[in-house]
């Protein structure tokens, strides 16, 4: 009985828990934290169960209220969004465990409401991924975005303005998506993704369908911060509270890429994007420009979190370009890179959160002697950094390798140059931090002679454990990448 209902429980448990959270906080403030962890744990368990059933028995369909599609809303979980569900619920569980000390320090008087919005945010993410209905996707997209605006706005100085700008641009993105849904509904009279993919191919000549496709793509590109539309991202994620940026930064952009894959390959057929329209060239161009621009702008930053934000901009370029290569190997690489990038960005922002918890700053100039002070945190940081650079056996290597293979298959050499260029820039970025943190000892500490006596001041255990877990997961995903590819990713690649 319960097993049949697991798909809906993934979304309903956090939704209900978010509504109950303020009541619990009203009874006893400190109970909110275990409540959040518990609800996300339940949701994570459900998503693991669903992914297991997808791997064994193929896609799961769940009809809300037993209304049959295309009339009712349908939840469809296949290999792609099964993977995404596990990723989202797993990483948000880690962030929830990690969050307590940081929130106590940064926002002690907003403890209860922070957790309420935190759970709502995760609900929105899970809903976007699980649904098989284009309008339902819009509603969840707005739930996730609105919670995100609120989470960002309570950050440090300048955060409200950053959040406001994100709100304006995010609303444009969501409204474009809604317009796309409207145009599609106009010609098909359906909102169900599977139903649409059956009806639409006959209408590919129609200008209305093309307009809808264009609206979808621009709207989603705004949400995923694809290069010229990335302007909201660096400010928003730099100034957000550290817990909020470790939740939002890894997930929001990657979920938008998931939505793009869904729209391009499930709602529309690959034949439209790559056969009738020059989407391949457009996406490759946008991806390559994003990689170069993101990498170069990351180099110019003096703030750690801001630098990470530009790395995200470059990583979005990897995935968009990889899908634009339009062959199975590259798309496999892009989907694997979604998985890897969520984990890697999560690790980086967790480290950034620990550093700003300890040093009260995320400026690179304040990182002197940090390796001696926090050896475990920085060990985790090194693992993540090596993965972003793409050193085997960390997971970042394998997706990059697939992307490079894919561009060889497609004969696109510029994309390979862009990938390698970005890797080189990443080496410079992270070795600069190692140079500051490892070799520059704080002068007030007495110079090199007394460096050995620097007291070890590690982060609290509740922050350290999730961060190290992420580092371990990076290694595990790297080592077991073949089984992930065989069991999950290869089924997620559309038939081209």
């Amino acid at each position: 009985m319960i097993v049949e209902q697991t798909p809906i429980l993934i979304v309903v448990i956090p939704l209900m828990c978010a509504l109950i959270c303020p009541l619990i906080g009203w009874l006893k403030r400190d109970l909110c934290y275990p409540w959040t962890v518990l609800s996300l744990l339940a949701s994570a368990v459900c998503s693991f169960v669903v992914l297991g059933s997808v791997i064994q028995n193929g896609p799961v369909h769940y009809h809300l209220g037993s209304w049959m599609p295309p009339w009712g809303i349908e939840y469809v979980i296949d290999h792609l969004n099964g993977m995404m569900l596990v990723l989202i619920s797993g990483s948000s569980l880690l962030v929830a465990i990690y969050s307590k000390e940081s929130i106590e320090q940064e926002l002690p008087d907003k403890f209860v409401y922070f957790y309420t919005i935190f759970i709502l945010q995760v609900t929105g993410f899970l809903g976007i991924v699980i649904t098989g209905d284009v309008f339902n996707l819009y509603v969840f997209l707005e739930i996730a975005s609105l919670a995100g605006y609120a989470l960002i706005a309570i950050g440090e100085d300048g955060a409200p303005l950053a959040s406001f700008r994100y709100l304006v641009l995010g609303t444009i993105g969501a409204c474009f998506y809604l317009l796309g849904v409207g145009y599609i509904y106009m010609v098909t009279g359906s909102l169900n993704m599977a139903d649409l993919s059956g009806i639409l191919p006959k209408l590919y000549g129609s200008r209305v369908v093309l307009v809808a496709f264009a609206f979808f793509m621009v709207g989603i590109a705004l949400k995923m911060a694809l290069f010229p539309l990335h302007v909201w991202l660096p400010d928003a994620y730099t100034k957000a509270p550290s817990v909020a940026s470790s939740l939002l930064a890894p997930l929001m952009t990657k979920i938008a890429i998931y939505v793009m894959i869904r729209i391009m390959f499930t709602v529309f057929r690959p034949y439209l994007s790559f056969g009738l329209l020059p989407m391949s060239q457009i996406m490759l161009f946008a991806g390559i420009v994003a990689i170069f621009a993101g990498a170069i702008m990351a180099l110019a930053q003096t703030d750690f979190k801001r630098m990470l934000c530009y790395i995200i901009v470059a990583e979005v370029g990897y995935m968009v370009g990889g899908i634009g290569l339009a062959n199975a190997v590259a798309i496999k690489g892009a989907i694997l890179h979604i998985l890897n990038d969520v984990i890697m960005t999560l690790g980086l922002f967790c480290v950034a959160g620990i550093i700003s918890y300890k040093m009260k700053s995320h400026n690179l100039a304040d990182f002197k002697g940090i390796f001696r002070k926090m050896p475990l945190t920085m060990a985790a940081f090194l693992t993540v950094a090596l993965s972003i650079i793409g050193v085997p056996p960390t997971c970042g290597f394998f997706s990059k390798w697939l992307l490079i293979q894919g561009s060889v298959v497609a004969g696109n050499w510029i994309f390979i140059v862009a990938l390698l260029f970005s890797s080189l820039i990443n080496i410079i970025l992270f070795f600069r931090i190692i140079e500051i943190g490892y070799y520059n000892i704080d002068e007030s500490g007495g110079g090199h002679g007394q460096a050995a006596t620097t007291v070890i001041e590690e982060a609290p255990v509740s922050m350290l454990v999730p961060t190290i877990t992420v580092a371990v997961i990076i290694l595990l995903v790297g080592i077991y990448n073949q089984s992930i590819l065989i069991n999950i990713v290869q089924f997620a690649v559309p038939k081209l």
Partner: protein
Amino acid sequence: MLELMIAKYNYWIYIILMMIGFYAMIAKNNLIKKVIGMNIFQTAIILFYISIAFKKDGATLPILTAADVHAAHDAINTAQYINPLPHVLMLTAIVVMVATLGVALAIAIMIYRKYHTLEEDEILKVLK
């Protein structure tokens, strides 16, 4: 062309409204004006959806009286009724839009309390 414009005037109004809202969101300096632009933009989308539902030749609201049911027995002529689904979708979208408006105004209040102005360039001057 002119006939087309007159026959589909609601769509033209939707495009014009949307462009006004879009311009205000991008170009205005005052944050409240941006919020107003955002609202105009979203209202244009409501108009668009409601226009989709329209059918020619005097289709009306899908409310069935007892007489209709008796007259039609089991087959109901859908051409007589406008499509109710876009209206329902817009009810949801209106809720979303109100929520967005609420969050936007809350953030604007937060900004005003902190910087005592709502002009974007003045806030940026304080921030730098």
